[in-house]
């Protein structure tokens, strides 16, 4: 070994950097495609649909249009598909087409502190990229803003320049508004599993009751998730960041961009819940230092809040952030949060899952990690199309959403899944939760969803968030229990009635033969039926009394009395 070290030649810096070159955008994409949702054959196709649909929904909402989205997926070879997505959105101005479809890390909502579905800035360009990588075919886009001019563009991404390579562009006259995107992709797979495009669209429709979403699948089947409500959600507002969520790097960047003249007005102006009083507190916390002014040693504040914010150094910003950590601020405003709302979820659930019963709850906004507002919405649907059909029965289904966007993958490590599993469903009368026809719907709303990774499919285990989800679930579970036990009792009563009547015909005939007086069997049956109905009615009345007492807080076990009344005095004992 010692011998070998002598063989190493010294290399100059120039020599070393000979191999240093810019990473191409394709390479970046290929290396990071798992993070961007392009891993696995089913998942990749779902991601494509997700990117397109998300873009359409966001565009429609921002321009006040009720979204009408159609997706068509056709199989044209082995693991080779052609997809088409069409919306009735505002259309894309021709000069922006290339940016939307062929420039990575460009977008309208990157760097906005606002609750929107997508945030990566990869979006549709990622779709173009993935299709190009797997088939070498361009994307075809037809879009019109409704002015009678339709722009049809065929484009690819010029990977060396990270910009659009427009292959063909035509303009023709036709009167419609919206965008139609068509592309070809390989190495993907369509199926109806709970991670496939069908499930994605179904859940998207559930969380977006104002949208009408249609899918034509490779088998040619058309499924339409009809619009449940005609109200477009209020577009979420951009929010000033809350001081508790700020990092040194952000602060430095903001200080370079601000138009404020003083640090104090910069802080008050750029952050929510920041007042001049709080600025003073920050100054106090950073502390004083002795400084020589005109030959005299005086004690002054280390940080002069009247200075220009552009003069803030990294060290200054570090001090500010440190000070903020120990100061109390009002919780952030929650206007930026946009829940779906209970009545809208209810309508969507009824429309799409058509359950026997459902309970929906939107909790008031809360804060996690000291300053990030969030809100939880849950729904529990039972029976009907709720749950997931599996061989030999039904399975419970957990639908996770973040800002209305379905989370289909990596359910295992998600805090939402954990919260659902943590609830003791047996306490709420659901004996076998996993094997019940139940759909649990959970929408986590926040300006910043705490994802565990860049894949944005799993929510991190933030204590406040998990607690809030559990509370919401327990609340709907309690309501479910009350309803379900009543329902079950009704069922049992009916079964009892049926059984008494079922054996009634035989009993009547037997008695007619047994009696020495030769009575008519039909007459006996009539009397017997009247008797049964009366006793059941009596038992119901007793039960209602009992229910009333229960609701008044006085639980008197009248059930025993009811039993006695129907069942006679003594029980038959087995030998």
């Amino acid at each position: 070994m010692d011998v070998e070290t002598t063989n190493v030649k010294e290399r100059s810096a120039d020599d070393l950097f000979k191999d240093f070159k810019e990473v191409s955008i394709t390479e970046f994409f290929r290396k990071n495609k798992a993070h961007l949702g392009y891993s696995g054959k089913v998942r990749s196709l779902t991601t494509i649909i997700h990117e397109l649909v998300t873009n359409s929904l966001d565009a429609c909402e921002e321009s006040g249009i009720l979204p009408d989205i159609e997706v068509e997926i056709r199989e044209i070879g082995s693991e080779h598909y052609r997809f088409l997505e069409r919306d009735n959105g505002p259309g894309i101005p021709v000069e922006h087409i290339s940016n939307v479809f062929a420039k990575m890390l460009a977008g309208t909502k990157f760097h906005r502190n606002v609750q929107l579905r997508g945030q990566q800035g990869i979006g549709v360009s990622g779709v173009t990229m993935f299709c190009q990588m797997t088939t070498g075919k361009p994307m075809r886009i037809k879009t019109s803003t409704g002015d009678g001019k339709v722009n049809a563009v065929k484009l690819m991404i010029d990977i060396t320049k990270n910009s659009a390579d427009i292959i063909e562009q035509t303009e023709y006259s036709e009167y419609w508004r919206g965008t139609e995107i068509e592309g070809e992709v390989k190495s993907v797979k369509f199926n109806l599993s709970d991670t496939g495009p069908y499930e994605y669209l179904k859940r998207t429709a559930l969380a977006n009751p104002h949208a009408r979403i249609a899918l034509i699948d490779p088998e040619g089947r058309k499924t339409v998730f009809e619009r449940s409500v005609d109200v477009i959600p209020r577009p979420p507002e951009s929010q000033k960041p809350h001081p508790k969520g700020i990092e040194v790097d952000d602060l430095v960047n903001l200080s370079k961009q601000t138009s404020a003249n003083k640090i104090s007005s910069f802080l008050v102006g750029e952050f929510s819940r920041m007042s001049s009083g709080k600025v003073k507190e920050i100054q106090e916390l950073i502390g004083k230092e002795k400084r020589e002014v005109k030959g005299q040693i005086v004690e002054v504040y280390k940080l002069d809040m009247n200075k220009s914010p552009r003069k803030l150094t990294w060290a200054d910003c570090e001090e500010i952030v440190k000070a903020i950590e120990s100061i109390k601020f009002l919780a952030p405003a929650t206007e930026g949060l946009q829940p779906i709302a209970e009545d809208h979820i209810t309508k969507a659930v009824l429309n799409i899952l058509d359950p026997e019963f459902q309970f929906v709850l939107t909790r008031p906004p809360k804060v996690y990690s000291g300053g990030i507002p969030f809100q939880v919405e849950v729904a529990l649907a039972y029976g009907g199309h709720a749950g997931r059909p599996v061989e030999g029965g039904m399975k419970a289904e957990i639908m996770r959403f973040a800002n209305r966007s379905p989370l289909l993958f990596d359910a295992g490590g998600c805090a939402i899944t954990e919260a659902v599993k943590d609830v003791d469903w047996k306490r709420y009368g659901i004996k076998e939760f996993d094997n019940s026809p139940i759909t649990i719907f959970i929408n986590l709303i926040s300006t910043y969803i705490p994802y565990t990774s860049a894949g944005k499919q799993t929510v991190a285990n933030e204590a406040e968030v998990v607690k809030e989800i559990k509370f919401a679930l327990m609340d709907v579970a309690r309501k479910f229990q009350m309803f379900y036990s009543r329902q079950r009792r009704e069922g049992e009563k009916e079964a009892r009635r049926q059984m008494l009547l079922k054996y009634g015909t035989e009993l009547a005939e037997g008695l007619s033969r047994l009696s020495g007086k030769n009575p008519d069997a039909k007459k006996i049956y009539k009397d017997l039926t009247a008797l049964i109905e009366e006793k059941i009615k009596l038992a119901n009345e007793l039960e209602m009394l009992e229910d009333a007492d229960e609701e008044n807080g006085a639980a008197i076990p009248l059930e025993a009395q009811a039993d006695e009344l129907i069942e006679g005095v003594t029980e038959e004992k087995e030998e």
Partner: protein
Amino acid sequence: MTRREEVISRLGAFGDELLEEIRKNEVPKMKVPQRGLNNVVFNPSTYILELGDKKSTRNYMNLAHTKKFMQSVLIAAKCKELVDRDKTASIRELYYQLKHAIAETKENTFEGQDESDPLIVDLETMLGVLREELHLKADDKGTIIGKITIEDSGDKIDCSKLGRSGLAIPSIVEHYKFSDVKADYVLVIETAAMFDRLVEEKYHINNNCIMMATKGQAARGIRRLVHRINTELNSQ
């Protein structure tokens, strides 16, 4: 009133009572003597185990009883028909005659003979009549061999002249008349195999005894026959 007329009238009264309850809008009930060990009394004068006074109520409105209640009535009605026509059926026949699908269901009135057999006993104890008086009989069970002659319906059967098989014991032995009993004792054997073995060895001839095989738990016919031989022939 003959015993037969008495049985018919008791069966009819049983049905009429239930009908009266239904007519009066009351829950129809039947009171069945309990047959558990806690309701069995030994009567030293007759040398017989008898049932006590404890009764349980079978109530049509109690879902646990509903089907049994209906089945009991069907059995009673069938027995009344048998007695009326002076015909006898085995308990297995009774089960098959009553078994049918309940209207508009896939359910049968009886799913097995194990459902009807205990209800026959219920009926006997409830009405205070014997199974035979209801014109029901069980299959022959058990064998008797040895120096005893039994007179049955005019025929005299010598149980020592029946080869190795002996005489099969029917469920009704009340009409038997005994004669020519020449035995020191009666040996009752539970298993058929042991009985056959002892017959093969001519044990009953060598030891001058009557042998009976119960073939498992003794059926009523065997028990009553043992009881009769014990009480009627012991003094001889």
